[in-house]
């Protein structure tokens, strides 16, 4: 009897989560409909030791230097990658800031955070807010 109740509770929890996911998808569709200045933009941050490639679904110019990158934004270098939904990239300063949930992956390490700030040509990455690292 208790087992049945727990299973029902679990199913309700899963359905609730799915409804939430549906909302997220809806927002995503709405964003897709907005006017984009650039489709599938690609940039790079260069420093002395490595190059970080940036790609996204779309981008909008905020001003001369700053571009708002949206939809599946990815940063990729030879030893790590970061995925998130929205990033403001400054082409002149070679910096990037995100306030959306982010996932950093490198060899045997994963970082979850509420955003990030890439500074000093990619040498310094600040993951903001409640953050979680898993080291394997």
């Amino acid at each position, binding site marked *: 009897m208790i*087992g*049945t109740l*727990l*299973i029902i509770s*679990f199913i309700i929890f899963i359905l609730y989560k799915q409804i939430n996911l549906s909302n997220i998808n809806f927002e995503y569709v709405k964003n897709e409909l907005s006017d984009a200045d650039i489709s599938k933009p690609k940039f790079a941050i260069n420093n002395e*030791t*490595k190059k970080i490639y940036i790609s996204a679904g779309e981008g909008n110019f905020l001003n001369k230097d700053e571009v708002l990158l949206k939809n599946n934004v990815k940063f990729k270098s030879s*030893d790590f990658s970061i995925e998130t939904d929205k990033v403001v990239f400054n082409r002149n300063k070679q910096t990037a800031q995100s306030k959306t949930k982010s996932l950093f992956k*490198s*060899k*045997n*390490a994963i*970082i979850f*955070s509420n955003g990030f700030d890439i500074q000093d040509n*990619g*040498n*310094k*990455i*600040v*993951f*903001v*807010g*409640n*953050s*979680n*690292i*898993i*080291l*394997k």
Partner: protein
Amino acid sequence: MKFNFIFLIILLFSITLYGRELGETEITTEDGIEVFQNEKFYLLKKNVKIESDDFSLNANEVKINFDKSLYDIIELAAKGEVDFVSHVFEIKGKSKILNLKVKTEQLKVEGIGSELITKDVKMLSDGFIEINNLNGDFNLNGPNSKLLNENILIVAESIDGIFTDFPDNKEIKFLEVYDKNLSYVKNKDTEMYAKKINFDNDNSIIELIDKVTIIRNEEKITGDYGTLDTTNNSYKIKSNNQGKVKVIIQNNE
């Protein structure tokens, strides 16, 4: 029964999705992480919790130096209200500052109220306590430094020594104790005071140097130099100045 089994499967699946897996280390912070790639370190800020199979730590701020990548930890420095448990070192501790050199297995705690506790030995200091897990060297330095186990209590400004076969067997092999005022050692039924106290497990002799006092039962003997043989618990005291050795025998009856 069948439902319970299904529930157990679902529960285990949920734990796998959201929890740390065996062999992994999970670190959580409240105020983010700063990764410095060229300098090869990262800073963990505010209410940091580290949890792994062998080690757990809570601190306000942690700096981790790495070698190849973030997982390849060389050194950990924690500050704030640090408390930790190391199953590898078989040790737990509290301090304001902790420094752990992973490859050389050196551990140092620093600040007022520092303590390191193994299953046999308790070490306390308001200065610092250092232990080398590979060779058993230890060092306590600063005010209120104390080392105690079931056989001995040592109180001094500086306590240097070596444990035999640390961490499995924490018997003291060698000891150098110094306090500019007076060091204090209590062994079974004997209390010893001197500026400098040495112990060598090979010859089982405790050597007392400068301003020596030995108190046992109702006997109190003072002098400039003394030895206590721990095998038969006998002691000798001498003075630089002949006739200076003073014996006080108290009768408490």
